[in-house]
């Protein structure tokens, strides 16, 4: 298999890491929505942690995305 084909396959495989990131983000925001409907007055106090949790989870997907780009574009 020549190197360019392997690079494309590798980059495509690296993108499967975003499945977990998407699922995790859905869980975080779903839980926040559920809790904020139950207790609307306390929802604003937790908004900092909502964004923190979102960024930390999303960063896992971003790491996979960056690895895909490294595989695709770094000259061997």
């Amino acid at each position, binding site marked *: 298999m020549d190197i360019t084909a392997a690079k494309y396959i590798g980059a495509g495989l690296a993108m499967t890491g975003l499945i977990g990131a998407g699922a995790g983000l859905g869980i975080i925001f779903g839980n926040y929505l559920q809790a904020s409907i139950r207790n609307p007055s306390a929802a604003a106090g937790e908004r*900092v942690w909502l*964004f*923190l949790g979102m*960024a930390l989870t999303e*960063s896992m997907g*971003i790491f996979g*995305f*960056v690895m895909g*780009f490294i595989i695709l574009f770094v000259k061997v």
Partner: protein
Amino acid sequence: MAAIEPMEQFMVHKVVDLPAVRIPGLGAIDMSITNTVLFLFIGAGLMSIFFLVAAKRALVPGRLQALAEVLYGMVDGSLTGAIIGDRSRPFLPFVFTLFLFIAILNVIGLAPGGFTATSQLAVTATLAVMTFLIVIIVGFARNGVRFFTLFWPKGVHWGMGVPLALIEFISFSVRPLTLAMRLFGNMLGGHVVTYMFGAFVVSMALFASHGGLASLGFLGSAVSFASIVALLALEFVVAFLQAFIFAALTCVYLNEVVNLDHGH
């Protein structure tokens, strides 16, 4: 037709070619002003001008001073004050500067002709290592050798605690890497996706010029154009959000070392 090169927008090239400086022990350091350095200067200059002009002491604030007060209130209320607590005041200037600097650098990159300095791993790694070193220095200055109790989970049997402490240490050491990669990856990804949609606009319109059924390409081109508008709106949100996240994580790490003796 020009090739579609998504990574070409991140190339670093020299703007002003200056001679290299020889530092004993480090070798020759190229002192040329590149586009990264230029936009770092622009960001720092904008921030300095903002602070100089907005930091007046009028009792009834003008618009710029009101903006500065809103930003200060947000950093003091949601960042250092909320996360670190009573001992947060010494860290407010650092966190404020970090937040505003990263936000300005991210937003400048969204302007046409602007270069995103934070899309260079060198810039984000510098900011992350700086934060990490400050956390370590503050940790040792405040707690001395008891800084290492940060890694020991409380109230566990030593058989469980040893592997946990090892995992905690590894997770602590990886922090500058994750801080750098998070900001870098977000900025890189945002600009690459925006470029790709822009490439779709042009390439689908060129394809549609063949006539016949291919005229659907014009529809695709219009949808891509609308997507670019939505994407840029999202990118503005991500620019501020990533600056907020960087500052918030800095506050979380500082809270761990500053409030080591009493749990917040």
